[in-house]
């Protein structure tokens, strides 16, 4: 999984006790931390959080479009996995396991939000799904705005899969694993979403 850059950044920039972890080759592995967490080691749990939370928070924020829902998903996912650590056979699989749990929760929250939005006639998605960097080129900002508009109207599963693939840069197998579906289904979701996104972008470019 492509997550190394994020991990490095987190370890350098944090103020939580994870900074006391030895860097480099001496850094304890997920399997080791999971083993210690199973024995009730609070420090190990915190280390797991510090290591994996930024990535999950990023994904959840981009799927849901707001911090509050993303934080909710983050906490629920960690709660669930910490409670079920005993069921994890391979401690090294903690990251993908957590991501799958988080993505499922985010997807469910998105569906629920849309359902309540239809029932109570409320607008559920933020006006801007993505938050571009200030120094991003103007045409990129415009494209992101358009993509956000398209994604807002996509089915939740397709939206999640497309974001994982094209925003986060996950491999197809990683997308399928995170969504908890087969590779074929993952591909189909991504393709369906991508077709709509491309159509929208092409249409707009043509109109211009």
């Amino acid at each position, binding site marked *: 999984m492509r997550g190394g850059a*994020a991990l490095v950044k*987190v370890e350098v*920039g*944090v*103020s*939580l006790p994870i900074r006391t972890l030895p860097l480099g080759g001496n850094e304890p592995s997920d399997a080791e931390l999971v083993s210690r967490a199973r024995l009730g080691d609070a420090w190990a749990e*915190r280390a797991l*959080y*510090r290591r994996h*939370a*930024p*990535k999950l*928070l*990023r994904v959840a*924020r*981009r799927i849901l479009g707001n*911090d509050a829902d*993303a*934080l909710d998903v*983050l*906490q629920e996912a*960690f*709660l669930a996995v*910490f*409670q079920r650590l005993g069921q994890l056979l391979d401690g090294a699989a903690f990251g993908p396991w957590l991501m799958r749990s988080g993505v499922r929760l985010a997807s*469910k929250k998105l569906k*629920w939000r849309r*359902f309540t939005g239809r029932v109570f006639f409320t607008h559920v998605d933020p006006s801007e799904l*993505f*938050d*571009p*960097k200030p120094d*991003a080129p103007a045409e*990129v*900002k415009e494209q*992101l705005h358009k*993509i956000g508009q398209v994604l807002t109207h996509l089915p939740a599963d397709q939206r999640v899969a497309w974001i994982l*693939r*094209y*925003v*986060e*840069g996950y491999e197809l197998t990683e997308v399928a694993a995170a969504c908890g579906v087969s590779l074929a289904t993952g*591909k189909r979701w*991504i*393709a369906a979403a*991508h077709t709509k996104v491309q159509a929208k972008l092409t249409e707009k470019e043509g109109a211009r």
Partner: protein
Amino acid sequence: MNEPEAPLSRHLEDPASEALLQAGWQGLEARRRTKPRDRRPAFVMAGAGALALAVAVFVGWPSKTPPPRALTLADGNTLAPSLGGPGPERWVLSDDSRLELGPGTKLELGENRPGQLHLLLRQGRMALDVRSQGRTRWRIDSGSTSIEVVGTRFVVERQGDRTQVTVTEGKVRVSDPHLVPPVQYLGPGEVLSPPEARSAQTTLEPQASRPPTASEMNRRRSRTPAAASTPTPPGPTGPPESPPPTVPPPNPAITTPAQAEDLLREADEARRRGDHPRAAAILARVAEGSDTRAALAALTLGRLLLDELEDPAGADRALVRALALPLPSGMNEIAWARRVEAKARQGARAEAQALADEYQRRFPSGRFWAEVQAWSVR
């Protein structure tokens, strides 16, 4: 499907700020400290609730409340048009309500139809324990006084034109054109004697010719249980007009109910005049008996000593005496509650606390628990 050249995230702000991560961890810790909530999706719960409601409305809802029936006797026989005789009578009705008639009582059945029972008390004393639970509306007319049952247990006594209503449990509605206000609700321990008798007595006693004032009417309504057994004396009874009371001889034997009745009437008169020591002396004599009347007299004596004569020790003795006698159940609770006050006012905190505990044990949902608690901690 095209492979992405580079993820779009390189153009996006990183939402995983340190502040959010910290907030996430703190929220996680807080959630772990609290009880985990039910994770079932809310819409499933909402759906289940809606389904249950639908089932309740369309299937489980009682089709109709069973219509009330006219009351009969418990054995199925119809109520006689008139009840009462030389001896006491006790009837159990089909809704399990109890009707007790004193000796010489004359009670007539006015109307008995589904949902409504109308009785006319011509003379004597009747005690009702109504258990209709609102299905039947009870009304008892006694002279110009009309009593409607709101609650459960009460006594109506009529002697000549004098009617007296005593409530031991629940609530009744008493209406009489002579009352001020004409409709009053009585709760447990309350006694009301509408001044109808006065107009009748007025013809016999010219000095009581003026109509009673509102303040006099309110004085007549008292929470004094002993007054329950004491018919209201005639006239608004201003002290100048009242004949000087005769002092009862010391410790005479009270052999008949009539004697007790006379003494209680005297006690009532004394209390109205403000002669509380004399009222207490008379009540103490009646309390020497061993029947319900003596029990009520003892309870009233205790209240009098506590409220008017500042004698909590004597009040406690009287209340102990009342509890040792056959006191009606509603009055029982009053006596226990007032014992706590008596002990507290004597400064016997430990005993007051012990009595408060006993009160709570006997009456777990007692009506006077707040007052009892307040006295026990003074």
